Structure formats: C-alpha cells, structure tokens
C-alpha cells in the first residue's frame, strides 16, 4: 500500500508544482494547498499504514495494533499551521488584488529592474 501511496503522493506533488508555476494567483494558492495535502499524506505514509486500530485506548486492542500515533499528532499540527498560512495567503491575494488590480503573476513583476 505504501508504494501505491508514494506514487499517488508523487502525482499530487506534480499537480501542486504545476499549479504553483502557473500565472494565476488563485491557481498558485490552490497549488500550495495541494502541496501541503501531499506533504501530510506523505508523513502518514512514512509512519507506516499498517495499524489495525485507531490510536485510541480501548478494550481488546493490543499495543501493536494501534496505528502509529506520532505522525498523526504531527500531521494534525501541520494541518493547523497550513490552515493558518493558507488563510493568510488567501487574504493576501485578496488584498493584493484590491491594491494592484491583477492576479496575474506576470504583471506582478518585482523591483529587480530597479536600479
């Protein structure tokens, strides 16, 4: 299963990077969302998918049957952080559009040509 997951995650990374490289800001933001999704799934996969029971203490489940709880906790943290960042990014895009009147990254050239 882990192999299939790894391939699928690779595909998600591909999609995410492809979106991030496009010109439209909203596609870029969606791309970053996908990127963090992929990263979280990858973490879960790396922890191993072999658990039989959720990592919650209950009767009749031996210690070895639990899914690995640590990646889950870390992913939870990462999800929340990604949420904070994504919402920030969204608002930034929203404000940038108000301020600059475009969401095309080509038109958002930097000040590099400034001398």
């Amino acid at each position, binding site marked *: 299963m882990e192999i299939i997951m790894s391939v699928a995650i690779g595909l998600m990374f591909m999609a995410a990077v492809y979106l991030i490289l496009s010109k439209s800001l909203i596609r870029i933001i969606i791309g970053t969302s996908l990127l963090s999704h992929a990263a979280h799934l990858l973490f879960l996969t790396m922890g191993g998918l072999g658990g*039989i*029971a*959720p990592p*919650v203490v*209950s009767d009749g489940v031996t210690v070895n049957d639990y899914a690995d709880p640590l990646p889950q906790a870390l992913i939870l943290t990462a999800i929340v952080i990604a949420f904070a960042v994504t919402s920030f990014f969204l608002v930034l895009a929203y404000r940038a559009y108000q301020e600059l009147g475009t969401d095309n990254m080509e038109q958002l050239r930097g000040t590099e040509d400034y001398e």
Partner: protein
Amino acid sequence: MMTFYWVSLFIVSISFTGLLFRLVKGPTVADRVVALDAIGVTLVSIVALLSLIIETEFFLEVILLMSILSFIGTAAFAKFLERGEIFDRDPR
C-alpha cells in the same frame, strides 16, 4: 452480516463514482454543488459502513461532523450561487 456491509459499500461507491463524474463534468456550477452535497451524504454512508466493517466506534464523530459540514457547505454554496457572497454585511 459482513457480506451485507460490503455489498452496501459497493453500491454506495458506485453512486459515489457517479457523483464524482458529475462533479468533474459539471456542466454548470449548480450541478457540481448538488453533486457535492450528495457526495457528502454518500461519504457519511461510506464512513458508517467502514466503521462497521473495522468494528470501531471512533468514527461516529466523523460521521456526525460530516453531516453537519455537508449541511453548512451546501448552504454556503447555495448562498454563494444565489447572491455571489456568503455573508450579508448589512442587516436585513
């Protein structure tokens, strides 16, 4: 009993796939929103069946949550489609 769950799961999945097709295909946004709402329902069923299969009660919260969210989500989308915005800024 297990067989029953599996068969149900299979059937629900077929409808899930169909809805997914509708979600992808569109053609109008309204189609997609309806599809999404229905997907919410099928998801609830799937999770319920799954927790029956793997014999755990810990996903009940998930089920409840899904139905709540599905409700809110559909309401939000509907409002968005109708008015173009989700929250009214002025009191009605």
